[in-house]
Every structure is written in C-alpha cells, then in structure tokens.
C-alpha cells in the first residue's frame, strides 16, 4: 500500500524564483507530453515491416507467422530452443551457412558405404538466422521452418518461407533459389532513440540450506531459463519480457509459487477435486517412463494450468543398480471439454538413487515473493531479494 502525504518542510524561497521555477516546470512537463502525443505509434495495427529477398525484391506490409505463433528458434550459443514472438524483434537476417551444388547419389549396395554419384546436381543452401533485437543484440541460431505472411497494400497476402535448409531441383542454380534474406520490423514498441534494454534478472536469496538451482519460468511463452550464481546473486541475462516465476531448488525443498493472470491475491487458486482427479488420471494414461506422476504444486485454470510434476520410477530399468529415479518437470496443460491435454513439458531436475541411498522427495514451500515477477520495457532489470522459509506442517 502506498501512502502519499505532503511534506510540510518546503523552503520559503523568493516568489520570483518560484514563479520562474513553475513556468519552467510547466514547460518541462507539458511540452514533452505534447510531443509524445504527436509521435505516439498506433498500437492496434499488426506488425509492419519490410521483407527483402535475396534477389533484391522487397515487400512491405503487415508481417505475421501463421496462427500468430512465435518463431521456434534454436540458440546455438545457449543450446536452447526458444519461442520468440515477432513483436520482440527489430529484424531478422538470414546468413548463408553453407551453399553448394550438391550431387545426387545412391548407395552402391545395401551394406556397402560407397556412394555412387548420379551426375545430377542441384542447389542446396543452409542458413543461420540472426535475430535482431531493438537494443542491438544479435542472436544466431537455426530456425524451425515457418511460413511468413506478408499482407501488402491492397489486401494481397503473400506467403514466404523462413527456412533452415533450401533445396532446389536438378537443373537449377543457386541463384535461382531466392530466399528471405532480411526482415525489418517497424513500430514494434521500441523507439530508435530509446533502445530497449534486454531483460535480466538478479535475485539475491537468503536460504536456510544450500541452493542447488534457480530457474525462471516465463508465463507467456512457457519457457524456462536457468539463473547462474554470480557472487552472491543468481542472475540471468537476455530474458524476453514477460511475467516470471522464480523456482528455487534446495537440498530438501522447492520454493515456488506459480502465477495466475488474475491472481490479485497472489495465491494459487484451488483446483476442484474432480479436476485434480481428472488430471492425475490423464497422467496415468499418458504411458510414461515413470510409474507414478503426481501434481505437487499447481496454479491456473482450465484454459491454462501449470503444474509441478513429481515423477518416479522404482527400479526395473536398464541402468544397473538404480532403485529409484525421481524427476521434477513443469507441465503446462489445458482442458478440452472433459479431457486434459499436455501442451509443454519443461524439465527441472532429476535424481537417481542407488541401493542404500536415502531418497526423500523435495518438500514444496509456496513462496509468494517468487511469483509474478515482471520484466517489461519500462522495468527490464528485475532485482529482488528474498528470504526463503521452510514451512513446517501447520505453520503459516
């Protein structure tokens, strides 16, 4: 709760100075506001941009991926698959990774490693894709091919492909294969003179026991990022904007609290027993490696439910001596009529216990301070400090 009270100790300065100061303040406040009104971008139009093909052709108009899905992208450096909404980017660049006139071939014979070249050649080109962010960052990786739609003026919609690999026909040359070489977006929220700061998080944690790992789970795209220990702070950089839940794993516990969009009370809404039973019943039917799968923490609604899943398998695997394999994942569900569906599975941690090793499961400690953390353009650097409390049975 914020209180606003006047501070009575204002210095009695000369009247002229106050008048001058007031006029200056007036000008300071109003002029930029007027300027902003004239320059504020329209926010209810689709992403506008320009697509440049490798043959020089350009297309300008509304750009989208089918179904407004995010781009599925593999970051080569971080070795992580990301879901990147186009609206987060200022542009894309296709960089040729390899291009050649490949020759068709067949195996000489089954069981022989020798290739027989047929003499027919065809162009092949593979690409890196560089994601360009408004703050100047560039991330290189491979894209899972996507169809790009460009709606030019006049309503005509053209389909282009963002691909990792391009293969031509025999008789074609490399120059015959045009590809999307660049996409530049306009009006995606960041003004050129005020580049957006990449999202980052710094979490200072006071824990009663040793911390094993800290993750940040993003709500909007269901992505998970691991925070690395830097000195006394757990930090993660280059995070997409959004709403995050921090998850802390210690030797005996998980500390977390999944956020729900309208959870103004900051508390996970209870799930009716009939739904929890349905959820666990569905998990049994999935037919997984693990013999038991339980939801040990959850939040959400039938439209989107996130749950921390404890999976266990008691022995009987190909790993000699392993008596118990325990694993924690975050599953994202939604309910279709009467049936729950799993949308995503995000791995957290696992342990293998051999004979004689103790194997208590992690306790779950709901910790409100770790829930609903916002990283936005206005507040790109998330810095929090939290003290973890292991709650005993019946303790608030």
């Amino acid at each position: 709760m914020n209180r606003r009270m006047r501070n009575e100790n204002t210095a009695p300065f000369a009247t002229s100075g106050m008048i001058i100061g007031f006029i200056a303040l007036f000008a300071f406040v109003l002029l930029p506001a007027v300027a902003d009104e004239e320059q504020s971008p329209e926010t209810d139009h689709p992403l506008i941009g320009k697509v440049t093909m490798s043959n020089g052709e350009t297309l300008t108009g509304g750009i989208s991926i089918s179904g407004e899905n995010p781009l599925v992208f593999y970051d080569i450096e971080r070795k992580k698959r990301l879901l990147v909404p186009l609206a987060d980017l200022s542009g894309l660049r296709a960089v040729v990774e390899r291009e050649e006139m490949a020759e068709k071939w067949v195996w000489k014979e089954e069981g022989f490693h020798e290739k027989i070249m047929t003499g027919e050649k065809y162009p092949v080109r593979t690409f890196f894709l560089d994601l360009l962010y408004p703050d100047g960052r560039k991330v290189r990786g491979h894209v899972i091919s996507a169809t790009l739609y460009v709606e030019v003026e006049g309503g005509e919609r053209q389909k282009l492909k963002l691909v990792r690999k391009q293969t031509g026909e025999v008789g074609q040359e490399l120059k015959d294969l045009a590809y999307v070489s660049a996409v530049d977006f306009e009006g995606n929220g960041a003004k050129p003179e005020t580049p957006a700061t990449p999202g980052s998080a710094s979490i200072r944690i006071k824990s009663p026991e040793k911390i094993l790992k800290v993750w940040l789970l993003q709500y909007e795209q269901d992505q998970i990022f691991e925070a690395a220990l830097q000195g006394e702070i757990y930090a993660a950089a280059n995070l997409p904007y959004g709403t995050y839940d921090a998850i802390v794993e210690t030797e005996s516990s998980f500390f977390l609290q999944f956020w729900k969009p309208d959870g103004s009370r900051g508390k996970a809404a209870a799930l009716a027993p009939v739904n929890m039973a349905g959820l666990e019943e569905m998990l049994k039917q999935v037919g997984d490696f693990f013999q038991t799968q339980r939801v040990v923490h959850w939040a959400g609604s039938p439209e989107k439910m996130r749950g921390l899943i404890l999976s266990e398998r008691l022995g009987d695997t190909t790993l000699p001596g392993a008596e118990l394999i325990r694993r924690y994942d975050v599953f994202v569900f939604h309910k279709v009529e009467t049936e729950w569906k799993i949308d995503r599975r995000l791995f957290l941690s696992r342990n293998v216990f051999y004979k004689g090793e103790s194997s208590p499961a992690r306790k779950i400690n709901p910790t409100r301070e770790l829930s609903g953390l916002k990283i936005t353009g206005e507040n790109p650097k998330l810095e929090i400090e939290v003290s973890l409390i292991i709650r005993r049975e019946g303790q608030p």
Partner: protein
Amino acid sequence: MSDIPPKDALKPGTPSENYAALEDWIASFRRRWRGAMCLRGIMVLAAASGLVCLILFAGDNVARFPAWVRTSSLAASVIMFACGAAVLVVKPLILKLNNEIVAARAEKLIPGLENSVINAVQFHKAGLSALERDLADAQLSEAAARAREIRPRNPGDWRAIRKPGLAALVLSATFLAYAILLPRAFGNAWARFWMPWKYVPPLTDTRLEITPGDAEILIAESLLVEAAPRGVIPEQATIVFKDQRGEKREKMAFEGGAFVFQFAALASDVRYRVEAGDAVSRNYTIKVKPRPFIESLKILCEFPDYLGLPPIEQEGRGGDIQAVTGTKVSLSIRSDSPIRAAVWRFFPERGAGDPGSPDVADASAPATDNAEEILMELAGEREASCRFELRRNGAYQIEATGKAGTPSPPLIHSVLALPDNPPRCEIVLPGRDASIPPDQKFPVHARATDDYGVRTVELLLSDDGKQWRVGDSRSFPPGGRALTEAFEIDPASLGLEIGQNILYCVRTGDGLERQDENAGRSIVYRLSIASDKADQKISDSDMESLETGIRRLIKKQTEAQDKALILSKWSEKDGAETDAAGKQELLADRCAAVVLEQSSVRDETRALVQRHAPASESAKGAALEARKSAMIQVLAGMADGEMEDAWRKADALRKTGGGDATRNAAGELMAVQKTIIEKLKALLGAEEDALASLLAAKKEEIGGETVDRDAARKLAEELLQKIAEYKEEQKKTFEATRALEKKPVEDFTEADLAAIKEAQQTEAKWAKYFEEKVTDFSKLPPQDFADSAVAKELFEIWCEVKLAEDAFTRKTVEMAVPHEQSGLELAESLETNLEKWLMDVKDFQKWNMEEPTQDYDVPIVDLPDELEDLIGELLDSEESMTEDLEDVTSGWMDSIDKGAGWGTMDGPISNMSAQGKTGNLLPNQQEIGGRSGEGRSGKSSGQFVEETATGKGGRDTPTRLTPDPFEEGRVQDTSTDPVSGSTGGGRASGDGQEGLRGPAPPQVAEQLVRLAQKQAEIVNKAESLDHGLKVYRYPRGGLPQAIGEMRQTEEDMKAGRLRDYSRTQKVVLGNLREVKDAVERQKSVNRDTGSALPKQMRTEIVNSLSEKAPEKYKDMLGDYYKALTESR
C-alpha cells in the same frame, strides 16, 4: 591656535575649589574616555560580526554547510561575539580608572597641559610640608585654571575608532548589498543559520519535493517514495536508506515526472534521504508499526446429514473452502499476538444464483456491496471462531484487530459451494436391447457414480415405459463414489412369456430428494422373450472372441496390479504438498479404485463366461467347442476362486487406512493378482497339457470352502479327451475354411456365413481402434519440414524369414531406458550404410525411454536419390499387440547414420535421416515423427519423403490433429486399402474417408460468426425458458446442461471451431426433447380436465358459483375458507 589660555588669564581660587574643579574635569574626561572605548569596541564587534556573517552566509550559499557546521559556526560566532562584547564593550564600562590614570591619559592626549593636571592630582594626595603645600596649591590653581578653559573633549586617538568604524561601515554596507541584491541567497542563508538544527534545504539548482516524507506504516506493508524534482531536473536520483541491516544506496526509477522507489514489505524502521543532482533532502523516518498475523486457520466442515459423511477438518494456511452446498463450516483462527476483535466477511460472487462452475474457484470479482459480516467469538487472547452455512460461491475475508487497533493483513480465501450433482448411472452389461429365452436369467450390470456417494441403486421395470416398479434395490453406506452392481431379471418370476417384452433401466440415488424424476436414471432398454436361439438377436458386439475377452481381462488385472504396487509402497512421509487429510483422501481414492478394478475383473469374467456358456453353433465342430468349454470352465472357477479372493483382499485393503497394514494388505493382494494374470496368460497360450494342468490344479481352501477334487479330476479327464478329438477336427476345419477364400461371396451358404461370423473380429477390436488415449504430442519435439525433396524411386526388397523357435512366445521385455543411457548421433551427413535384416521374432520389446532433459539441434541431412525398403510378411497381428508390447511415445529425435542398421524394428526415437525400413513387424501405437518413406500405417506425424505410395497396410490409425503442416506437392498414391488416420498435415494423395476437423477457412469463419449470433439468441430463449420452468416448478431435466453446451458451442463458433459439433448437437437435442417430454407430462397432470366434460356439466359448475352453499356443507366450507385466510 592653542586651546590653552595664557597664565595670566587664569583666575585663582581656593585650593579646595580648585581641586573640586579639577576633579570635575577629570571625571568628565573619564566618561568620555570610557565612551570612546565602548564605541570602539562596538565598531570592532560590528565589523567582526559583519565579516563572519558574510563569510558564513556566502560560504553556505556556495558550499551548503551541513547542519553541524552551521550549528557549530553559529555557536562559535555567538561565543565570539559574547566574548568580544565582554572585552570590548563591557570591560571599558566597568574598568577602574582613577584620577591619576585619567590625568595621565589627558596629559598624553591634550597638548598644553604640561603635566599640570597630573601634578595637581599627585600633590593633592601626598603629605606635604608648608612650603610644598604652597607649591602644590599654586600648581593646583594653575591646573584648575587650565581645566576651566579646556573642555575634556574626545580623548583623541580617532584612528582607534575610525578604523573599526570604517570597517564596520564597509562590512555593513556589503551585508546590506548582499541582502538587497541576492535576497534569495541571503534569505536562504538566514533561514539556515537562524535555526541551523532544523532542515532548511540549501540553495541548489535542483529542488526536491519528497512524498510521503516521514510516514507510519504497518509491518509488511510497502511504501512508495516519490521525489518530485523542481528547477534543474537531474539525470538520476539516489535514495540512501538505513535500516537494521545497514545503509544502502539505490537508484530511483523515473516515472511520471518523479523519481520513485518502493520499499517492499518493510519489517523495521527505516531512515532515508534522496540525493538528486545537487540537491540532498533531509533525513526522513518511516516507522513500522507491528500488526497481528493470523498464524493458523482451522476449518471444520460438517456435511449435510443426508450425505452421511464424517466431518472433515483441515488446518494450516490453506483456507480455501470447497464443499457441497449446505455444509456447515466452522472457522477457528489463532493470531501470533493478542487481539481484541476479529471479523469474518463473506463476499458472494457477482450475479451468483446457483453455485457456479465446479472447475475453479474464482472470487476475483466478489460483490462487496452484498457482503455479509460476522463478528467472531473470541476464545482467549489470541483465538477467535465463527460458524456459517455454505450457500453460495464467493470469497471470505478474516480480519483481526490487535490490541493497539492495528488490523491484520487481510486473509482472503475462496469459497466454492459445490452443487450436489445428481448421480449418474450407466448399464455396462449388456447396455443394449436384448432377447432371451423365457427360462434364462438376464444379467444387468450397472455402474453408478456420484460426486459424494451413491446410496441406492435400483433396478426398475416397466411394461409401458410410464409406470415403473422397483424390481430390485440395494442400499450402500455413505462415501462410495463409484460402484458397479449386478442385478438379474428372471422372466419366469415376472411371469413373462414368449413374445412379451419388458423395459428395464437402473436408477441410482445419492440421498438427496430431487424433483427431476429422471435424475440418476440410466438409459432404458428393452428385453424381449424369444422362442429359441435362432430368434436371439445378439448383435455383432456379442461375438467377441473368448480370447479377446481374456486379453482384456489380463489388461484390466495388470492395471489393478499396478495400482496395488503403488499402494504396497505407500508412504505418509512423502513430500507432497497435500496435508494429512488430503493424503488420506488420496489413499482412500486409490484403494477404492483397486476395489473397483478387481470387482470389474470378476464381474467381466462372469459375464464372459455367461456369454459364451451356451453352446454356439460352430462349423468347427465339437473339438473346438470342447476347448472353449474348458477355457470357460477355468474362467468360471477363477471368477469364484482367485478373483473373488482378490476382490475380498482389495476390500480389506480399502479398510486398512494407511501405514504397514496398507502395505501388507497390498502385498497380499498383489500375490493373488499375479496368480490371476499368470493363469489368464496360460489360458491364452494353453496347449492341452497346460489346460489340463490348470483344470487339474488342486484348489486351495478359499474363504472356508473346499472344492471336490474328484469331480474336478473327472472333468479334466473328459476335457482332455475332447481336446484330443479337437486336434483331429481342427485340421479338417482349417481345410474347410481355407476353401472359402476362393469362393465368391454370393455363393456362401448358411454354414459358410456362420463360420465367418464365428471368426469375425469383435467390437473389442474396434473399441481398441476407436480408443483414443491421451495424445502424446506434447512429447514430440518440433520438426523442421524445410527440406521438401522426395526420393524418386524406391526399391522394395521382399524377404522371407525363417522364424526363431520361440518367435511367438518370447517373453515380453520392457526396455525402460533412463536418461543416463540415452544418446543422440546428430549426424550431419549420411556416410554409413549398414546392412539391415528383418526380424525373426515377433515384437517382444516395449521401449520406454525417459524424456530428454535438454534441447537438441537436429540436422537435416541430404538424402539419397533412391530409398531402399525392406519388407516382409507381418509376424504380428493387431490382436496380439497388447499394451505391454506397445512402445511409449518419447521426445527423442535424432539424425541417425551409423546407428541405422541390422534388425528392423519399431522404436521410440524419431529419425530425420529417412533410414527406416518397413520391416515385418507391426508399428506400435506410439506417436513418432521424423522423415521417412511410406512404410506401414501407424501414428506418425513426420515428413513423407517419397514420391509414391503403394499401401503396405499396418495399424488402423485413429484420426487426430497433429502439429505437422500441410505441405506442397502430391504423392502418387496407388494403394487400394481404405486408409483412415487423417492428421490435418502431410501431403495430398488420393481420396479417402472423412477428413479432419481443423481451423476453418475465412469464408466459413464468417458464416460461423453469424451462426454464433443465432446460437446466442437460442441460448437467451433457453435461459428464459429455464427461468420460467423454475418459477412454475416444472421439471427442468437436462435443460441447464443443454444451455451450457449451447453456450460452449457459441464460443466455439465465434472462435471458428466446430469440434464435436455433431455430438454436441445430439446431446443438446436429446436434452431438449427430454425436457419437452417432461413438461408435457407435467402439463398433462396440471391440465384442467374440465374441458373434457360435457357442456351442460361445465355450465352447471360455473353457475354454481352464484348459488348458495348446501346447508350441511356450510360449516365445512366456513372452516375451509377460514383455514385459507389464516394460512397466509
């Protein structure tokens, strides 16, 4: 000109007169001298003060002295001034100046006195002789004379006064000019030095307005500090604050024209100041006041009596309440500090009439204007309690007030008043119309479920569908949410004869009286009494093979065994989030599930036995029938023996309640389950010896009963003989049926048809086909469909395989592969072409891989121009592919080069290098991606990289929506099999069956929007109707459900979805028809039947209103109307 008069001008006087005059003169000189000294002191002080003030004020304007500097400098200045005043002003006033000192001073400063005054003073004092006296008197006269003439004016030395005076004047002028020319600076410095211990901000380019400044908040509250800059706006601002952890500096964010900083959840006092630009605010204090916290909340739910459920208590901080409407809830709180009051407030949900959706409690928008409030009863210093009845959804808040009047943080929890939904009932056996001979009893198995507990299950019979009677009734104790109950309809006892029929259904109740007579009622079926077996209309679904039924039993029993395994390792100390009550409920649910499974196994076995018990007309002869009879005998024995025992043990397990008792009971149950499974499996693959041994196995004493072993042995011997006969007949039968392959269909005889019918696949196979388990797409990693190249030619190599000796009987092995033993090749190109061969054994491995823990970048390799395929005759059949053989969908995807070789078998890893072969094994049921040629049909969603398709058969695949896109190009499809299994992706080939539902094209989407509007109108009408029915107490039946379905359909239409529309339509129309029928029935009850009377009678009735009442009825009528008026 000299002031000294000449000697002869002096007038003599007496000595005493002369001395008196001299003394006056000296005194006057003395006064003037003192004055001069004081004046000089004042000038000096003024100059010094002016200088000091100038230095301090100007210095403060520039250097912005801190308070201690100002205070100390002011103090020093005051002390200096005081000391100076004492020395320079006061001292001269009190200094003793005798005549001699004054005379000497005068002599010094006034020329012409020529020591006359000093001499006179000295001579006056000394003891003189007469002569000396005369001289002294003369001197005195002279001095006196001079004194009369010379005024004791200013003691001269004007420089001593002039200089400090000038300095004082200059400094004063400067000070004045400073005050006039720089009034702001002067005023600021003046204010700062006037009371230097008070905070007066210095003169800076930037000025800050701090809000809230000093503040008082409650513990754990947050406070936003704003520093609004004026003047020069600095680039950044820093807040410096100090609390019990020490001092910190933090940057403030700039929002809305001010720098802001939020103190979050303060637990102790904080002092802070803001520094921005050249401005520094003073120090402010935020005082944190303690408040009470509710450290525990106990909830006791007492359910309505009719449920018969025991109260449930929960303790802890989880305070959401979900219970059936009518539950009495007692809340008890305990605070961490003494409280003087506690209030419970309830905020009902907005617009809530009936309880809302049971899915999620959502009290984010409670109706605060309708809040109810209860003052909780205090019990002790820190406890309070209250009690209320659960009627509506909403939220409740508890607020405790501490002794100091500070409120506790609001504790808000949701309240969900769950409706007690009507129970549901379904006839699971046979679940259809049937006809039986009059001497045969008809089993009816029904499954009843209720959200709180099934209390009664009744078999209802009717001749006409209107008048129903209870044929049989069972009652149950509270708590059983699902159960299966078996009834029997005995036509003989009902007096039914050939040609008659009877309607039957099952009704279940949960203890709550309901107006809707259809509540808890199953579908109505018809049972006809037929003359002989030829009239028995047994549908195809009844002709499931015995073996398929046994397989189903094995599967069910295995599932029950898995459930018992979990219970055998049950631990109360598991680290799950649920509290003890929740854990107990979970245990109870799991035990109930085991009981249900075992009951189902036993009952289905009995049903299977009963279904196949009558001798079937088979062309295969008595030998086959003998084997079948033997199997049926074994099954019947197991149903009454091991399965009954298993059910009893499961029931005993349910009553254990946790701990070692549960684990031991589960272990005992598992032993019996294992025996059942082994026997069932042995039945399937039993040769005559094994079958004989099964029959001849001595039964143990079960439940106190012993079996007649002699009778069993005799039976076994008879069966063995029949099985030997069966072997000979079997050969002949196979020859006969093989001949049918070459016979045209239209030439089939009755015997041929009967033989075919016997061999037909039952509906169990189709049930297996249509069974859609939870889709495993969440496991499959995203696949790149970029490379659209296809292979032009395919070499198909057909092989014959010599099977291994144990090809069909190899024991199933589950290959559960944990992450440590998984790996990927991720080949960038194909360089290896290992030899591949077909399998010589059936699929006996179930691959079950643990999901990967990280993401992989799978390359897209260049494929060869021609793919080679390796095909063989299938070793598997759809029937033999039981659950324990089906691989599990996994999230592994690879580009395999070196690893693709040798045995061709199905596996869980999607492969992007198209090195797979068709092989001779049936694809498993798991989802698989990757790139491949045609292969056999199965649940795949990858990329087809071949130009042609010829149809190689495979699994009957259900239609489902997969994530693969619809690609360009067309496949030359020459297959003739009717293939199902559309996915919404892939490439176009030929024409097929009904396609998949998916996102609608834009034109259709527009039409759907219009239809959605029409649907909305229908929903409105239905809601009005529903309201009307409620008001007039007509049965509503399934109308609320229909309204819910129609609303959902409206949403789907708006979103462009048409999923399951036909099913929804049927449900809605069915419900509406039911309502219509119910209303019609009710209307016929309510309808005034007077209109059917003859006109004359109607006229008499109407006219009677105006007639007098008969005398003997007067009292009766009077009492009647009196009762009417009084009852209002």
